[in-house]
């Protein structure tokens, strides 16, 4: 019976993968046919908006499903406990880089940010290294990367990933250098270095079970963000069809130097997931907004948010929260400026 189950999982996976490839390759043609079948042309604003919507929504959802499934499987290999063991006692620099990289693949939910933060410090992971992880984990996440890949292409997705990692590494190093340990809440200070890096959790998982976790992850993530994708792409479609070309150039264009700090200031307190923000931002890009400004806005919305600060307030004193937000926001601004200058 166990054998049977395994065969069923693998068979199902293969079938789903084939179906995925088949459907994904035909989306463009399908949208084209559908738009012309209702008597619209892509030359009309409404036709263009409709085409954009019909093509982008399933494309992004398919990509997201695939990426989230793979990440769900990856998560069964990289537990936070394992990551902590790898990071404990690391030096600044290399430790920050490893922490930022592990932030991409380690399962992370902002609701367990506090136990994770304390658990890291307890096992002797330096404060700056812990911050590198805490910045990279929410910012460089699979939803953002899948959407960027779907809507902007692989170059921008990769660029976002490397820039996100750079912000995480640099911010962590700066915070580490500032010796902020005394701005942790007192009970947290006492816990620092009090435990070994060992794991309390048995990780007994084998293959078909890993696929089940992938599926659970898909249900959870795609089940939560699909609404935002539909809304975001809908809004983006409207912008695509109706907002005049170069409309954004005077506001978010490359020549407007203050647009980067303004974008970050607006983005920091905003709380939206990548799924809602990326389609809108993509549409703005087509209307003359500069890539660096758009990137900075996106990063600040995803990486920093008011609810996260409130959660972290349990372990950090206000001073350290301010430093954390300030350093990350500056890093993001720097990314925006560099992009606008270079590209």
């Amino acid at each position, binding site marked *: 019976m166990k054998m049977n189950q395994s065969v069923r999982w693998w068979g199902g996976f293969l079938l789903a993968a084939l179906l995925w490839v088949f459907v994904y390759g035909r989306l463009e043609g399908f949208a084209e046919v559908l738009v012309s079948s209702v008597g619209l042309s892509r030359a009309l604003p409404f036709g263009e908006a409709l085409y954009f919507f019909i093509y982008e929504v399933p494309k992004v959802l398919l990509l997201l499903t695939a990426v989230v499934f793979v990440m769900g499987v990856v998560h069964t290999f990289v537990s*936070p406990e394992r990551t902590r063991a790898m990071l404990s006692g690391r030096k600044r620099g290399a430790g920050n880089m490893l922490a930022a990289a592990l932030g991409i693949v380690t*399962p992370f*939910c902002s*609701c*367990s940010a506090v136990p994770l933060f304390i*658990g890291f410090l307890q096992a002797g992971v330096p404060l700056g290294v812990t911050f590198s992880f805490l910045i990279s984990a929410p910012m460089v996440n699979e939803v953002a990367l899948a959407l960027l890949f779907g809507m902007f292409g692989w170059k921008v997705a990769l660029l976002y990933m490397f820039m996100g990692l750079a912000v995480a590494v640099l911010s962590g190093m700066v915070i580490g250098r500032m010796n902020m340990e005394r701005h942790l809440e007192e009970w947290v200070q006492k816990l620092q270095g009090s435990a070994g890096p060992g*794991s*309390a959790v048995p990780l007994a998982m084998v293959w078909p079970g890993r696929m089940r976790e992938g599926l659970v992850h898909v249900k959870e993530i795609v089940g939560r963000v699909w609404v935002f994708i539909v809304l975001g792409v809908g809004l983006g479609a409207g912008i695509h069809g109706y907002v005049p070309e170069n409309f954004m150039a005077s506001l978010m264009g490359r020549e407007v130097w203050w647009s980067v700090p303004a974008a970050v200031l607006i983005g920091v307190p905003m709380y939206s997931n990548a799924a809602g923000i990326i389609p809108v931002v993509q549409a703005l890009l087509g209307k003359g907004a500069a890539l660096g400004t758009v990137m900075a806005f996106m990063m600040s919305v995803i990486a920093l948010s008011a609810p996260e600060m409130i959660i972290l307030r349990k372990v950090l004193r206000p001073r350290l929260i301010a430093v954390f937000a300030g350093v990350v926001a500056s890093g993001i601004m720097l990314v925006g400026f560099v992009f606008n200058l270079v590209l």
Partner: protein
Amino acid sequence: MLQVKILGTGCAKCGQLADTVRAVIAADGIAAEVEKVQDMQEIISYNVLSTPALVVDGAVRSAGRVPSAEEIRSMLAPRTRGCCCKGSSGASGSSCC
């Protein structure tokens, strides 16, 4: 009496885990006491990094996810002394020493 603790600070998954555990306990007629632990310092005392976590008789059995009812059943099953197998979620459940 089995002492079951659900560690978590009130996220959606924590509720799901509690529900699944209660359902398994009720279905199997296990004598168990289920307690939800929300206090951060107590959660941390279990050396758990991600919530929700399931603690059975003082031992952390799972963290950061909601296991299937089947897995939870094996986590709640009394562990034979000296046994080295880790639940029946895998393929080699029968080769227990």
